[in-house]
């Protein structure tokens, strides 16, 4: 990497100082949460607030994972993982298929369908949440993974993104595949999917975080604590009325809840960059 940027004396110091300040501002709350997850309740509520980690890391994290608040955190993490993966994979598959249909097949009302999908971009989950709840409830899907995943699985954004991608793939390639004898399914699997892999990787990261961070929907439809997801679970652990709670355990839960999206970003980054370097154009 050396030599990519010319050395500029004071300018370098200044930019680094600005970056360090920025990182400190963003990281400080996370650091506080981490510190809070390694001390005891007594240490935490006695001012001044500790700024260095204490010795109770394993106690607090084990308690969070195994006991938690209303449900053990490992179970909530698992629920979150299932929901996030379900939404991510489902969304990618559905939007790939619908974009494929819209771009490559001529059928009646094709543009109408495209605009219908496109218009749902303007409707966030919150706007349609009451009717969606009604539908899910009457289908008996409350407190189930299907109920958590299904209403969030269709994605106009991803469909639109894949549509734009497919439209940049030259027609001659499609025709070459036809001459080679590839039918629609083979063309999709052998040509389109490999050519979309960078976009799929990018979407995976974005959608996983989207799915993981869902709050309102799981809060509405999971009444059984064993179906809680971790993001809403944190909220359930907060004290109501004059309950006392173990703040270190809540902080440990928060740290655990932050971990998977970080892992996905870091893990997929390699694939993502590799894909970008290898990409055509």
């Amino acid at each position, binding site marked *: 990497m050396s030599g990519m940027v010319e050395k500029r004396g004071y300018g370098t110091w200044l930019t680094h100082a600005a970056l360090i300040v920025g990182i400190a501002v963003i990281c400080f709350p996370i650091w506080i949460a981490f510190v809070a997850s390694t001390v005891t309740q007594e240490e935490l509520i006695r001012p001044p607030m500790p700024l260095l980690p204490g010795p109770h890391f394993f106690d607090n994290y084990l308690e969070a994972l195994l006991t938690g608040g209303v449900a053990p955190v490992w179970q909530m993490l698992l629920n979150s993982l299932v929901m996030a993966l379900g939404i991510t994979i489902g969304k990618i598959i559905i939007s790939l298929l619908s974009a494929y249909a819209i771009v490559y097949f001529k059928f009646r009302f094709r543009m109408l369908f495209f605009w219908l999908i496109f218009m749902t971009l303007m409707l966030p989950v919150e706007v349609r949440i009451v009717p969606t709840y009604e539908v899910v409830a009457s289908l008996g899907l409350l407190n189930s993974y299907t109920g958590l995943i299904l209403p969030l699985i269709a994605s106009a954004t991803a469909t639109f993104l894949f549509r734009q991608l497919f439209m940049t793939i030259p027609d001659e390639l499609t*025709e070459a595949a036809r*001459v080679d004898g590839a039918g629609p399914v083979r063309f999709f699997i052998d040509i389109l999917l*490999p050519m979309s892999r960078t976009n799929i990787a990018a979407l995976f990261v974005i959608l996983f975080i989207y799915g993981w961070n869902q709050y309102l929907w799981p809060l509405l439809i999971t009444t059984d604590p064993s179906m809680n997801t971790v993001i809403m679970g944190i909220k359930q652990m907060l004290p109501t009325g004059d309950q006392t709670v173990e703040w270190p355990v809540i902080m440990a839960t928060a740290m655990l809840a932050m971990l998977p999206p970080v892992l996905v970003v870091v893990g997929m980054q390699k694939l993502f960059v590799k894909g970008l370097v290898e990409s055509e154009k």
Partner: protein
Amino acid sequence: MAEIRLEAIKKNYGRTEVIHGIDAEISDGEFIVIVGPSGCGKSTLLRMVAGLETITSGDIRIGDRIVNDLEPRERDIAMVFQNYALYPHMSVFDNMAYGLKIAKVPKAEIDSRVQEAARMLELEPYLDRKPRQLSGGQRQRVAMGRAIVRKPAVFLFDEPLSNLDAKLRVQMRLEIKALQRKLGVTAMYVTHDQVEAMTLADRMIVMNAGVAEQVGAPLDVYANPASLFVAGFIGSPPMNVLSHEIRPGREELDPGAVIGIRPEHIDLVAPGAGLIDFDVAFCEPLGAETLVHGVTAAGDKLVVRIDGADTLPADGVPMGLAIDQAHILAFDASGRRSEV
């Protein structure tokens, strides 16, 4: 191996007819070039033979089958595209093997066919590379390799050389010709480049505005163009077109009618010594030959091709033109050849 017959082929896009009924017979092993300006329907015609465009009316036969409603893969053809259309994520080997894999050819045979094609096209060192790691000429070869391995009855080429630089184009032109001879496969080749058409074709179809203006061997077409369009399109520089009669003892031409004479059938002589007089405007020395541009006494623009070794006439000097009258062609007001 197969012959192709086109019978009254028409193509409409909505209400607009773009191909107005084309008949042609292409015999087994023949190299036929469809040439014409852009938008004349030549690519559409080729794509109809390939099965990538539907046929509005008429029949296409490949061998003894009518293929109008067959999918491209069922027509026993292979096509080379203008932009190569290689699969960017597959290696050269996989690009060539893809069609065979789909056709469920045994692996050992795929391997030997691809190796053979690679050897023929000098692509052996590149079989593991991706298309983006190849030069334009090599990509073009891979595209041809993909066509060869399928051992089709008919090769279809859609302007395959137009993305290459001039030098490579000449080289690949020769290679395509040699390859087609060697394999003995019937070939249909679309181009807008009349030099490619002249050099590659056993016979060519000159198309204009959805109509086949003339079908014939390149030199016949060159010497005996059926219409003013063909006369102007085939040959570079194009045939001179004069709207005034120059042959002695004849009446002036009918309104709209013209006569044509190729630049190489005119010689520069002293003023007054030729059939007509001519003022030199400027010269284009090309090395082996020189093109002399000027205006006749009657006001027609005209180009003369002289040997590159001859002394260049100065700009603006009057000269005479000696013209062999046997080479003068007459065209009527509609642009068709007329006998007078």
